[in-house]
């Protein structure tokens, strides 16, 4: 069977993940998605805003160009944005007894690349900051860097582009969404560890403990998000193949 090739290739990855999943650190900051309003010191709030700004600028330029050059893609753009809206509104229970939510950024990353997703994700973050009081304006830069920019950027360049022609498209889609979700939480943790280093273990010490807890909470969620993204992507292949081809996502 040709399929066993994938099982063999994925086996080391799965082994590593389960290793992380069962390493239970004594103390760690729980993984999270949004840093609440006021919970970053001013200098860090400004720093992450400055990091986010160029990505927003490029994202706006690329989004404008896409809408002007391919106006028929607006529907897919709305779909990708809507997917982020739905998934980031779903608080899903995790094994640590808390809740967390998926990001939904993987789909848009595959369709439009990380820069346009930076805009789509930031719209969802703004909605949550202004209306639901989740996240905030001072922490918008940091939250955008983790969910809307960093996760998609890592997933796009380290997973989607290298894998899309090498593996079956479903596998590439799954891993892209999975990594975009996990990377988001790792970046948030890094941001918090930088702003609030553990007084005993310091930044590096606490970061590795954070990473351990991450896996427990977030891996099942990221797996579920990966599977859902594959289902949506397959449905798009069946119904919107013209758009996918024009975006260069699918071979002509």
């Amino acid at each position, binding site marked *: 069977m040709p399929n066993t090739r994938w099982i063999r290739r994925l086996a080391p990855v799965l082994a590593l993940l389960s290793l992380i999943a069962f390493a239970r650190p004594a103390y760690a900051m729980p993984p999270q*998605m949004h840093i609440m309003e006021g919970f970053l010191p001013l200098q860090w709030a400004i720093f992450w805003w400055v990091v986010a700004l160029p990505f927003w600028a490029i994202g706006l330029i690329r989004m404008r160009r896409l809408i002007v050059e391919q106006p028929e893609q607006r529907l897919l753009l709305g779909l990708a944005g*809507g997917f982020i809206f*739905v998934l980031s509104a779903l608080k899903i229970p995790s094994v640590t*007894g808390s809740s967390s939510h998926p990001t939904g950024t993987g789909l848009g990353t595959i369709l439009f690349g990380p820069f346009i997703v930076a805009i789509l994700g930031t719209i969802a973050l703004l909605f949550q900051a202004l209306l639901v009081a989740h996240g905030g304006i001072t922490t918008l830069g940091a939250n955008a860097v983790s969910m809307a920019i960093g996760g998609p950027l890592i997933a796009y360049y380290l997973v989607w582009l290298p894998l899309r022609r090498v593996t079956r498209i479903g596998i590439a889609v799954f891993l892209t969404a999975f990594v975009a979700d996990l990377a988001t939480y790792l970046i948030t943790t890094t941001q918090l560890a930088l702003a609030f280093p553990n007084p005993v273990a310091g930044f590096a010490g606490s970061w590795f403990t954070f990473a351990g807890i991450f896996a427990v909470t977030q891996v099942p969620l990221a797996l579920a998000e990966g599977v859902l993204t594959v289902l949506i992507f*397959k449905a798009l292949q069946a119904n919107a193949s013209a758009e996918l081809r024009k975006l260069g996502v699918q071979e002509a």
Partner: protein
Amino acid sequence: MVTLKQVTGKNLIGVGLGVIIIVLLIAMPLVLTPNGTFVGTDNVGSDVIRQLAPTYDSGWARNWWSPPGTETESMLFALQAAVGGLLVGYAFGYFKGRKSVRPASVDAPDNESAHQ
């Protein structure tokens, strides 16, 4: 004759399997952690910051508005999901409708480049 496969697409089994996996992954914590209260990680994280840096004052910036209670908060999250679901459903409805009006072979806006 129209077969089930034609109506639903050949991926019916794959889709069913995918949905089952998603439900299992999401339901697993409810079984494994029967006493969990499933507080949002955003809130738990804020508590940890209070432990790590007890002198840190987060009051320097506040949300201009926050929902008066968890019910209103749930409503707003539901609203967010509804808006997103609407966008996803609208796009899929359009694509599906277009496919049923025009045969799949002329699906493309640029017909000749897509199908040779």
